[in-house]
């Protein structure tokens, strides 16, 4: 659908451009020469404005030559400039949305447009696309090329001054680090390190024109739209997620008793801190994420060997997603679940190749405090603790009484408490 819209606007734009060019060709050619007289003459402009040679008024007609607007003439965008010199009040720039209707409409609904009314820093079309040198987003020189987007957005979104001025206090901390964090994510490093233009950049998730804050229900990064937004690229994952316990609960809008809704992509993968799932910091992080809802399973996991070595930094032992799958987690009553009884051997065998039905009777969330469900574990634990307490208490008593006896004897100056330093009565002493 997105592709359709894009193709449509390209065709419409091209169509309008061709029409304009054909209709106004003879006139335009003449005009072009006129504009060039001043705006193509660097010395003239410097004299008029006192500016440097790069003054924005220096716009030779050739500047459009290899841009998307190569077929346009100055007057296509700059109308009312031929009424006199210097240009009068009637001179105005034709809004971009005259041709780029869809993009213009989207922008008009965006947070950028809302803010453009009140602050001069919010970007209009030219803020991101440039004014004369407008290239297609597949052109490496374009500020909207995938490899340049983060830098383009970062011109404002990594600027502490702009964030300090325009962002809500609660959002400032995250806003300040968002772009820098992005470069460290798997998406960001795929772009900058690997040069992969298929990797997501700002506009893939936030939209290009209809940019809205995440708390706006129409935003592509609103919770309601996250699976669709990420799923636009991660198609295979989205298919699996949609059928998982989380995906089904999400689609139904289910919430937990404490009001938490089913997790969407960013709950586990975060937004600007996305790390590869084979990185060490991932392992503990994802377990903690699951633990925010599955509190009891989180606790009992850390009672097991799997949990303990993971907690201490090992990446070899199973974490939640190793047994429950990363995206296709389902209740153990679902025959398609990785933890459905009939599927357990295969699940265990992913790490323990020789696992059999006996092996799969291990309780990876066994809870020795839960007498009702794990009586054997409970009584083993009670027995072992009892043994420890009995032995230690008995011998602590033995020791304390011994010390007391020696202290009493020493206070009385008696013989019973003497050490080996003193020779026992009746034996020869040579020390």
């Amino acid at each position, binding site marked *: 659908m997105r592709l359709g819209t894009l193709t449509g606007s390209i065709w419409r734009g091209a169509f309008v451009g061709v029409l304009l060019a054909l209709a106004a060709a003879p006139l335009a050619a003449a005009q072009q020469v006129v504009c060039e007289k001043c705006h193509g003459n660097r010395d003239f402009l410097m004299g008029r404005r006192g500016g440097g040679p790069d003054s924005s008024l220096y716009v030779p007609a050739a500047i459009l030559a290899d841009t998307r607007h190569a077929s346009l003439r100055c007057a296509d965008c700059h109308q009312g400039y031929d009424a006199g010199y210097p240009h009068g009040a009637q001179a105005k720039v034709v809004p971009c949305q005259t041709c780029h209707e869809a993009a213009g409409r989207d922008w008009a609904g965006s947070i950028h447009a809302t803010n453009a009314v009140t602050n001069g820093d919010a970007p209009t079309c030219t803020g991101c696309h440039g004014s004369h040198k407008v290239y297609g987003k597949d052109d490496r020189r374009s500020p909207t090329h995938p490899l340049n987007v983060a830098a383009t957005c970062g011109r404002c979104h990594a600027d502490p001054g702009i964030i300090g001025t325009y962002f809500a206090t609660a959002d400032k901390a995250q806003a300040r680090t968002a772009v820098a964090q992005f470069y460290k994510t798997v998406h960001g490093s795929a772009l900058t390190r690997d040069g992969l233009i298929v990797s997501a950049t700002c506009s893939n998730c936030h939209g290009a024109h209809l940019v809205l804050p995440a708390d706006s229900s129409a935003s592509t990064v609103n919770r309601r739209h996250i699976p669709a937004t990420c799923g636009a690229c991660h198609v295979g994952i989205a298919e699996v997620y949609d059928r998982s316990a989380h995906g089904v609960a999400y689609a139904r809008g289910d919430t937990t008793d404490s009001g938490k809704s089913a997790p969407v992509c960013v709950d586990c993968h975060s937004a600007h801190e996305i790390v590869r799932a084979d990185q060490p910091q991932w392992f503990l992080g994802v377990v903690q994420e699951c633990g925010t809802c599955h509190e009891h399973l989180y606790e009992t996991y850390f009672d097991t060997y799997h949990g303990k070595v993971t907690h201490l930094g090992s990446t070899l032992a199973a974490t939640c997603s190793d047994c429950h799958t990363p995206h296709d987690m389902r209740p153990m009553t679902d025959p398609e679940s990785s933890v459905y009884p009939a599927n357990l051997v295969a699940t265990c065998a992913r790490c323990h190749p020789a696992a059999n039905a006996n092996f799969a*009777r291990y309780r990876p969330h066994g809870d020795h405090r839960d007498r009702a469900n794990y009586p054997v574990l409970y009584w083993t634990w009670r027995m072992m603790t009892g043994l420890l307490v009995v032995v230690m208490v008995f011998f602590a008593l033995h020791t304390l009484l011994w010390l007391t006896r020696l202290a009493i004897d020493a206070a009385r100056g008696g013989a019973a408490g003497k050490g080996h330093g003193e020779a026992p009565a009746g034996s020869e002493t040579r020390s």
Partner: protein
Amino acid sequence: MSPRVLDAADRGARPHLWRFTPLQRTLHALVIVSFLGLVFTGLPLHFAAAPWARGVAGIVGGIESAGFLHRVCAIITFVYFFTHIGSLLLRIARGADTKKLLWGPDSMVPQPKDFRDLFGMFRWFLGLGQRPRFERFSYMEKFDYWAVFWGIAVIGSSGLLLWFPEFFARFLPGWVFNVATIIHGDEALLAMSFIFTIHFFNVHLRPEKFPIDLVIFTGRASAGYMIEEHPLEYERRQQAGTLEGLVAPPVSRAAYLWSLALGFTALSLGVLVIVLVLWAVLH
């Protein structure tokens, strides 16, 4: 005062008498090294949530290296365990002293006298009687010995289950690994709690012996020490005229210093373990 006054077994009347064979001393040194190794590589896992857990595991290069070293120390444990059993079987095979091994004053097997001694000690603690006089092994030494036997059987077997779960799952249901995890950790906790407090007190730290008793390293103790700690054995040998055969030369300076170093290192590490356990439990 003797320059070697630190060693409780070197104080008092001479001569020195042999008490432990080189094999027994070697095995005990292996017990110390492997047990400390097991404790320091296993403790972080048992108390994974403790603030020091990552740090202690980090000493040996992280929890995965700790797991490897834990298994190395387990092998050392099995080696000394079966070497000891083998040496006993060898003695039995030679037939000379089977009966003495299993019963009587030189045996490790608990005797009625041991229970009388235990009660006698409590009577003495309470001022109700004389201090019991011990034979070759007091009931405390026998308890230590059998505790290690029991400990290795329990911790060793549960440890093997957890080391080779896929193999043992051929015969056993998977929940035994849950049970083994609890038994392995809690029994180990008991072992270290006991060794690093009660054993340390009984053998090294009580006022009669403070600060250390090196007899298990040097293998020999003074007659004075024997008269105080094991008077019945001393008198029995005196009457039988076998004391002469046990007379040993004083320990060399080098052996003394090595024994002292090993002894104090083990004592310090043990006390450190108790601190870590208390820290984790109270945290």
